[in-house]
């Protein structure tokens, strides 16, 4: 692989305000759809998907954050959908079981809270033009838009410097 093939990650100063806003918007969009779509959790996943498809063309930086926001949203939405389905089927049929429901409900609430905190951290980084990698989701998103061609800075940065996840 020659040096021409490598991609240098854009540093915060090189990223436009528009890109920063759009990247941050991906996480805000998740919050909004989470709040609005609580009764029908799968619908807000579609809203998130549309945001991602529209904004991924702006720049790889925005696409990375939008994909990370979308991917990390999926398990949370599935958990919420499970809770909603449990309640609806139980109320509709009267025969289903509540055994374990409260464990599941508390678990879902805790996962949602963790997800929100993690997303706020990511949102702040995105707003400053930084890459922030959530476990697994960050890695997959990075591989999708930069991958192994991204170059790693040679020296330890003095201030924040965008770099690939460990292992790339």
């Amino acid at each position, binding site marked *: *692989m020659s*040096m021409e093939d*490598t991609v*240098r990650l854009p540093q915060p100063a090189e990223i436009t305000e528009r890109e920063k806003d759009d990247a941050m918007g991906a996480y805000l969009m998740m919050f909004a759809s989470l709040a609005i779509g609580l009764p029908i959790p799968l619908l807000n996943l579609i809203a998130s998907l549309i945001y991602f498809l529209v904004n991924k063309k702006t720049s790889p930086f925005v696409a990375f954050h939008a994909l990370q926001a979308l991917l990390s949203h999926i398990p949370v939405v599935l958990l919420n959908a499970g809770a909603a389905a449990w309640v609806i089927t139980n109320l509709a049929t009267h025969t289903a*079981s*509540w*055994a374990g429901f*409260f*464990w*599941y*409900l*508390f*678990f879902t*609430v*805790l*996962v949602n809270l*963790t997800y929100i905190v993690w997303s706020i951290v990511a949102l702040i980084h995105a707003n400053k033009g930084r890459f922030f990698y959530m*476990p*697994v989701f960050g*890695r*997959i998103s*990075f*591989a999708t838009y930069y*991958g*192994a*061609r*991204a*170059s*790693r*800075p*040679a020296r330890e940065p003095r201030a924040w410097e965008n770099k*690939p*996840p*460990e*292992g*790339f």
Partner: protein
Amino acid sequence: MGEQASGGLLTRRSSLLAELAILLAVLVVLGLLAFAAQKLFLAPRVVTNDVSKSLDNALGPVVLRQVEMSHTVLSNPDVDAAFAAIMDRLRPALGQLAPGSPKIRIVVIDSRTVNAFTLPGGIICVDTGLMRNLGSADQMAGVLGHELSHVAHRDPLSLLARQVGAAALAGMLTGGRGGDLARALAQTLVNVRYGREAEDRADDFSVRLLAKADISPLAFAQALERIRKAEPRDASLLQWIDSHSPIDERIARARQEAAGFSVESRRINVSWPALIRKLPKPEE
């Protein structure tokens, strides 16, 4: 200029696996937290309310049949009339203190044992040995009040659920090796103490129930005192107050509790000594 990166998503699997492990660990921790929260705040209610009244009602007759097979159930119109009179006084108060309690059925067992116990589904068993040691229908009402607390709070079912698990209960009701299990459950319920918390709650409940039913709230403490004095030749017969339970403490508590009520009490219209004379002679 940066140095050449050497890996990718798939070529550096270990990093991805490490992150997956972190995510998994976070989920496990959250799951355990949720479990702890659920146990802390909701578990007792989930067991007693969600295992459902139907299980309670289905289990009662099964266990009662087992008790009937191993004990002599007394069928005596005078005794039945006496307990009906006591329950007529207690029932409205029970409805106020514990709405939704099941229909109560009292079964009298001819036995020298000083005992009373509650089966699932609102069945209360009273030994004639206990009846002989009480001095009045009011005192009997005090003992029944204690047992009614176990009924209202579904203590028998909670206990069984804790001991054998809902799966065994369900299996027993749907067939399988039900007979053996029913025998074991009956034995458990006859000799049970539900633990300090439930017993104290039952004592308090009885005093409140008596006061609400316009019966002297002291009657419960008096019943405990009569049972303490019983001193049967065979101490193992004194089952209702397990020898390890601090009976003096319970009496003091019941008296203190009763002092908090000012009740214009009316005695239950049953001549207890006359009733006891009508009981069959105890077998030696």
